[in-house]
Each structure stands twice: as structure tokens, then as C-alpha cells.
């Protein structure tokens, strides 16, 4: 009985205290005909040793390819200290800090996280996480629609330069809440969403404009112009940002004349391993005025009976456990452990460290793009400046090329053509600070032969 501490003597004594003969009697309120007998689909238990051998084999099976994919999840270095501390039992095996006095560790971490996220985004307040960047954008959209006191129409402009997975997630989550998502096209040459593109779809009032920075192509949007334009029309502006990019880029709080109203994004670049896509963490920050519409946990500073500083969950009246059907969101369990990791990660790197990471990724990707464009027929798709990712056009079908690269244990990038057929054979590449020059060179060589092969076939 793995993990069960009961001895025969314990069991006998406990049954006796309850006054039943056997454990089965405790289930006697369950109608007999419902009682399950077998769990056919569940194999017999394994020892930890056996399951270790199994999982090691499974992990090994997936190889150790070199990763040039970005597209929303980035292969950054994570200081060893981050997860050694985050997985300490006291963080790992505690739950939501409902008993504040017994949870100061977690609560202070949340408060520090919120402080760091507001510093990065330049906004006033932050919640203590949502599931991931895409669901955070969905919550941001809902929040904006609720918050905009001037525009009551639940209409939100959503540029096509927002990551397609994000757009689909938002669509799934908001579909039954009456929100209308209006696509905004992008400039085929620059890769940017311009004010003109927005104008084109904005004949009716809209509650919010979403502004990705950088956008899915890595391209930098003219965030100031977009922000001013939308706010002039009484819409709120929602920035979707990469927190590492924010080390170099203007924070949403500084966009335009008065700053974006809401910022959200994916926290993965702040110390989370790629891990097949999760767990990551969604962050969501806003101006003070909107705090009561902010979904999710918020930790606040307070004092104890003796006046000592402490932290506690606050503004819980926004949440489902108090407000039930009138809550700002249904979220309950969030991404606490990832918040802990992100907080430690940011504390260790500091603003300067993040800046160096961002700069290194940026420079590495520039070098990568340059090298790959040395392969005949490979060329950049967009002209506008981009941060740490680059969209390239290939002279052969992306799928074929990626498969050939994968055979050499190179994950060549994200197939943009699938999502943007108008771009043709298009590939989004990224080289984080972890990618080395030999790896970049190896990629170029592999790409050259993959292209040659594909075109020969």
C-alpha cells in the first residue's frame, strides 16, 4: 500500500472506534449496484524503482534535439538555485495561503512577485498569476470589457499578429460571454499592425485593443501610436508582452501618452523550463483604477495584532469562493509554484541580468537569421525591426524542411505557413542565449542540405 501508513493494529483500532467491522462497511451508503469492481484500464502498481526505469526510458526516447523554436516558449537558462528552492517541501506541498499566519512564505513571495511584475510592466498592480499567457489574455479581454465605463459594446480588436494559439484560446474562453473579437490585419511588408489596419475595422465603438509587443513574428509594433489611437476612441489598451523583452523594451505603462491600461503575457521566460508547454504562468497587470475587475488572487501587505508587517490575500470579494456566480472569474487554483520560481528567478537575475539575457537572445537570433539567409532562397519576410525571433521565407515546403532537420536532431522553428497561409513557406526561428555559434552553424549547414534535398525531390 504505497504511501499509506496504516498497520493492521491501527486499522483494527480505528474500525473499532468507528464501530464497523471492516472498511467496506464505510461505503455502505453507496448503492450496491453502483459499486465498481475492477479498474481494468489501470495496470498493477510499480515500485518507485520500476517507474523510474520506465520514465527514464521515455525521457530518453525523445532525444536531446537543439531547439530553435520560440513562438511563445523560450529555451532560457534557469539558475540552478531557482528550482532547488522552489521545490522545497514548504513551497511545493503547501496550498493557497488561506491561513495567512501559517503561509507567510508563500504570501510574501506573491507580494514580491506582484511588485516585480508591476516594475517590469510599468503598471500599478498585478495579480498573483493565471494559468498561462493565452488564458491571461482571455481574462484581460473580459476584464477590459467589464472595466470600460465609456464603451459598453463588448467588442475587442484583436490583431492577427497576436499569437494564433492565443487568439484561439481567447475565442474559446470568451465565446459564450458575448464578446465580439474583431480581427485586425497586418502590413504584409513590415509585419506590423498599423493604425490604418485598426481604423479599417473600427467603424463601431470598441471596448479594447490588444497590442502584442513583440508580435508573433518577433516584429515590434508601434505601440505608442496604437495606444494613443485606441485611447482616443475611449478604448482600453491591453498589452501582450514578453517579460524578458521588457528588460529592453518600453513597458506597457509607458506606451503612448498615458500608458496601456492592462498588460498580460506568458511568464515562462522567467525561469520555467519548456516542459512540453506547461506548467507556465499567466501574468496580468493593470492600472490601479481597474483592480476590482482584476481576476485571480492578490496578496496585500498588512499588520498583525502587534503591528508587525505581514501579508495576506486581499480583495477576495472579487473571487469565486466569495462572489460565486458574480465573481470576476472562475479561477481558483492558479500557478503558485511557478510564481515562486519566477520570483526567485527575477531576484537572482535582476533587471540588468534580464537585460543581458534579452540582448543575448536578440543578438543570437540576428546572427542565426543572417546565417540562415546565406542559404540560397532563404530570406527575411518582414522589414520592421524584430526582437529575438525572425520570420523567414524558405525556398521549399516548411514541413519537409523541418522534418529533414528533425532527423538531424535540430528543431528548426515554428511553421508559420500553417497559421498564415499567405506567407507561403514560412518559418519562425529563435536562438536564445543558450544557443552557441557551433549550433547555429550546424543549423545553417543542415538547412542548406535540407533545402537542396527538398528541391531535388
Amino acid at each position: 500500500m504505497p504511501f499509506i501508513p496504516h498497520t493492521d493494529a491501527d486499522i483494527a483500532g480505528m474500525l473499532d472506534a468507528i464501530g464497523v467491522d471492516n472498511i467496506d462497511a464505510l461505503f455502505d451508503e453507496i448503492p450496491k449496484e453502483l459499486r465498481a469492481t475492477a479498474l481494468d484500464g489501470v495496470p498493477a502498481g510499480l515500485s518507485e524503482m520500476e517507474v523510474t526505469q520506465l520514465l527514464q526510458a521515455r525521457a530518453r526516447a525523445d532525444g536531446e534535439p537543439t531547439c530553435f523554436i520560440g513562438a511563445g516558449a523560450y529555451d532560457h537558462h534557469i539558475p540552478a538555485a531557482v528550482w532547488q528552492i522552489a521545490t522545497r517541501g514548504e513551497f511545493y506541498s503547501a496550498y493557497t495561503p488561506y491561513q495567512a499566519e501559517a503561509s507567510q512564505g508563500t504570501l510574501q513571495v506573491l507580494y514580491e512577485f506582484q511588485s516585480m511584475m508591476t516594475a517590469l510592466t510599468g503598471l500599478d498592480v498585478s495579480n498573483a498569476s493565471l494559468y498561462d499567457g493565452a488564458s491571461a489574455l482571455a481574462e484581460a479581454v473580459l476584464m477590459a470589457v467589464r472595466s470600460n465605463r465609456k464603451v459598453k459594446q463588448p467588442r475587442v480588436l484583436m490583431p492577427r499578429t497576436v499569437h494564433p494559439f492565443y487568439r484561439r484560446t481567447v475565442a474559446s474562453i470568451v465565446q459564450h460571454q458575448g464578446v465580439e473579437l474583431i480581427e485586425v490585419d497586418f502590413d504584409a511588408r513590415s509585419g506590423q499592425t498599423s493604425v490604418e489596419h485598426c481604423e479599417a475595422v473600427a467603424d463601431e465603438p470598441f471596448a479594447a485593443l490588444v497590442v502584442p509587443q513583440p508580435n508573433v513574428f518577433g516584429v515590434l509594433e508601434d505601440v505608442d501610436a496604437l495606444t494613443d489611437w485606441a485611447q482616443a476612441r475611449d478604448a482600453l489598451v491591453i498589452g501582450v508582452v514578453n517579460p524578458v523583452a521588457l528588460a529592453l523594451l518600453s513597458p506597457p505603462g509607458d506606451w503612448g501618452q498615458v500608458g496601456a491600461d492592462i498588460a498580460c503575457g506568458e511568464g515562462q521566460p522567467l525561469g520555467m523550463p519548456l516542459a512540453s508547454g506547461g506548467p507556465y504562468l499567466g501574468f496580468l497587470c493593470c492600472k490601479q483604477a481597474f483592480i476590482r475587475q482584476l481576476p485571480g488572487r492578490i496578496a496585500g501587505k498588512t499588520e498583525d495584532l502587534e503591528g508587525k508587517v505581514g501579508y495576506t490575500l486581499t480583495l477576495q470579494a472579487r473571487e469565486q469562493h466569495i462572489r460565486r456566480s458574480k465573481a470576476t472569474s472562475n479561477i481558483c487554483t492558479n500557478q503558485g509554484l511557478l510564481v515562486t520560481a519566477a520570483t526567485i528567478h527575477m531576484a537572482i537575475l535582476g533587471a540588468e541580468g534580464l537585460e543581458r539575457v534579452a540582448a543575448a537572445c536578440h543578438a543570437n537570433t540576428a546572427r542565426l537569421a543572417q546565417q540562415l539567409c546565406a542559404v540560397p532562397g532563404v530570406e527575411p519576410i518582414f522589414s520592421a525591426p524584430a526582437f529575438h525571433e525572425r520570420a523567414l521565407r524558405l525556398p521549399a515546403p516548411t514541413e519537409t524542411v523541418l522534418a529533414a532537420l528533425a532527423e538531424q536532431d535540430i528543431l528548426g522553428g515554428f511553421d508559420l505557413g500553417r497559421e498564415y497561409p499567405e506567407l507561403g513557406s514560412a518559418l519562425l526561428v529563435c536562438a536564445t542565449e543558450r544557443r552557441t555559434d557551433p549550433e547555429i552553424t550546424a543549423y545553417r549547414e543542415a538547412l542548406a542540405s535540407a533545402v537542396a534535398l527538398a528541391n531535388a525531390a
Partner: protein
Amino acid sequence: MLIHEHSRPGRRASAQAPLETADYGDLPQALRRKRRAALPEVSELQAVRHYTRLSQQNFSIDTHVYPLGSCTMKYNPRACNSLASLPGFLARHPAAPESHSQGIMACLHELQDMLKSVTGMHAVSLAPAAGAQGELAGVMMIRAYHDARGDHGRREMLVPDAAHGTNPASAIMAGFTVREVPTGSNGDVDIAALRAAVGPQTAGIMLTNPSTVGVFDRNIQAIAKSVHEAGGLLYYDGANLNAILGKVRPGDMGFDVIHMNLHKTFSTPHGGGGPGAGPVGVSKRLEPYLPIPVVIKGDDKRYHWLDEDDRPESIGRLTAFGGNMGILLRAYIYARMLGAEGMRRVSEFATLNANYLQARLREAGFQLAYPERRASHEFIVTLKKEAKELGVNTMDVAKRLLDYGYHAPTTYFPLLVPECLLIEPTETEPKEALDGFVEAMIRIRAEAESDPETVKQAPHSLPLRRLDDVRAARQLDVAWKPAADNA
């Protein structure tokens, strides 16, 4: 002391970033940050020391008995963490091709299969990131089902008054209205009220069984019949699966949709508030609507992802990359260690512990909310008598329990039971721990009689005394700002 207070301008953990700053002169000046974010500037040791010491201020399963009702705070096997953290798993990009994903996909596929078997459902998607997202997915599938049949009038979701707050909140997010169904005095859903409530407007009902009052609803078959006959579907909130694992299956009870809280029943870490994982299981008729992605095993004996193209009727994508994979892996590892036999033991011993604790507390004179009933894996004590007679309320008792080294049970939930403690010991606590808890409760009651202030001012032995929640909300301070900003 905040990490920010350890900060000094120019201090760095310099092994942790590229040693020099690369060139980024090509980024347009106008789009660049004007001043550095006010993140702390500390050495690596300072960060390590700060967060190590902070961690020590938490109660956790690894340090304390933590009988938080509805949360299943049981032992999180350490192997789940270390194996899910094998370099191969951590390094895998979510967009890696299937050629480089067969290992993890095998785990996910087997997990889907095990969850099907455990719940008695036809198909499973692992996509939802936590319980509440599983609920949302579940009710969205109910909606999709009705909509696909052109049955557009079904816009009302029934939710028992005892339900967790996420249930009504999720129903609203899926565009339903919520109608509450009362709980009878015996803890079962008031079946007459239910019958009166169902109708052509009924999209479905959200239930958990055992319910959040800690008893198994004996009328579940009648409930199912009544809702199904009215054309509604049954949604199962899987938060309480630990009570019935291998004993009775939601699918067999008549449920059409279920979400599971893997961070509860399957013992993935609660992490100070997540991450969770909230897979959904459905009956055959709902399969097309499952959120994507789903893993299938092809005729080629290889694993494949099903996405939007393969599942055009899917309710869609709930996170960018398909869910909390690392948590799913942990659940998979746990499930493989348990095996079928181990799973049955989980519910048996969770139930044994709860009933033993209930019996002991009853014997010690505490009032049970449902004294005639078996406990499931949890049960409710109501302190309304103590509150009235001694002026010591549930929160006071909860805080005083901390002094005795026990994390408090869930307080004031479910809302329908006054001054309640929802107590869930879980199967991984030994008898001695339960006996110790009973003893602490007895002592606290004695204190409440002889010296109520001690209880009302608790805790006394923790680094902080009782915290002022009202002040936190009134004098809102939710982020540290640099002195310059404050000035």
C-alpha cells in the same frame, strides 16, 4: 524583510546572466525602455537565503498535518517531481515534432486511458489547467452538445447550494444562468426541489458526489434520472474523487462530463496555490467537443496529437500549449506507482481516516453537521454552539490549531453550514496524527471555556500574530514601489 530591501544599486548575481551585454543597437530608440525596472539587485546567496528562510514560514504537507477539506492535502511523492524533471522532459519544446515526442505522448496517452478507467467515462482530454478550467470546459461541452442539437433554450445550469464557488462561476463563463438547488438536512440534495427545478430550460446540473458536505448522495441515480429525463446533462466536479477511487465511478452514476483535480486525487503538488491540472472525461456523445489537444495512438503504433483540424467541433483550446504537461506527468507517475490496487486503497483509507476522526470528534463532544451519515473522505464539524456559548468562532479555533502544529481545516465552506470546519485528513496521515488532532481540538475547547482570549488572539507561537485582513483591503498595498516612486 522584502527581497527589495536587500537590494543595493549595482549588486548582482553575476554568474547568472551572460557575462557581457550583447548589442541591441538595432532596436529603435523610441521603443526602448527608458529606465531599468526596479527589480531587486541582490547576490545569489542573498536570494537563496531569503527564499530559503521564507519557505520555512510556510506550513505544508511536508512539515505539518494539513487537513484542509476539499483540497486533499496528501503526501506528494518526491519521485513524481524528480522523474517529471528528467532533463529530457524539461527540455522538450511544446512545438517539438511528434518524432521527438513519443516518450511523453506515451505517458499522456496512458494517463488518458487510466483516467477513463477510473471515472468510467468514454474519452478524456488532459487540456484544462486546473479544476475550474476543467469545469468551464465541461459546461462548455454541455452547451456545445445542446447547441449542436439545435436545443438552444437550455440556458440554465443547476448548482447545489453546497457547491464550490467555481461551479456557478464556471457556469456563468459558459453563458449559463445559475439556479441553486438546496441541500436537504441529511446532506443529500433536496430531491423534491430538484424535480421542481428541472425543465426544458435545464442544460444540466453540476454536482460532486460525495458532495462538498462530505457525504455520498444516496439519491444519485434518482437525480441522474430526473435531470436526464428533463433533457439535461450531469456534470461531475471531480474534486472529491479521492473518496471513491476504485469504489464507484462517476460514469456509472450517470454523469456525462467530469473534471478531475489531479492536484488533489493524483497528488500533484499544490505548490502554494497551484499549478493544478483538471482533465475532463466525457461520455461518448460528448467526445467531439473535448478541448484540444488529445493524444491518440495511431494504427502506425505511434502517438499523434489531435488538434483543431482533427476535432472541428471541439470547444477549442484553453491554454496556448495544451495544458500543464509537467503536472500531468506527475499524476501519471503517481498513478503508475499506485496501480489499480493502490487506487482502491487510497479511497478506502481516506474514508477510514475521515470516519475515524469523525467518530473521535463526535465522542469528544463536537457537533457534526450530518451526524447520522458516514463521512466520505471528509466531514463537517460545526462550532455554532461554541460560537454562541463561548464567543469563540471557527476562525479562532482554526488559528489556535496552528499553535498546536496543525494546519486548519477549511473554514466557512460550504457556506450553508454555520461556523463549519470541513476536515479532510487524507489517507497518508497515520492514526497518531489524527489522535493528535483530536487532542488539540479538545484542548482548544477547554481553553475556550477557561481562557477564551487565548483562542481569540491566536496564533501565539508563529512568527506573526493574527493578521488584519480588513486593513489589507482598506489600505491597499499590493506592490512594493521604489522610494522615488512613492515620493
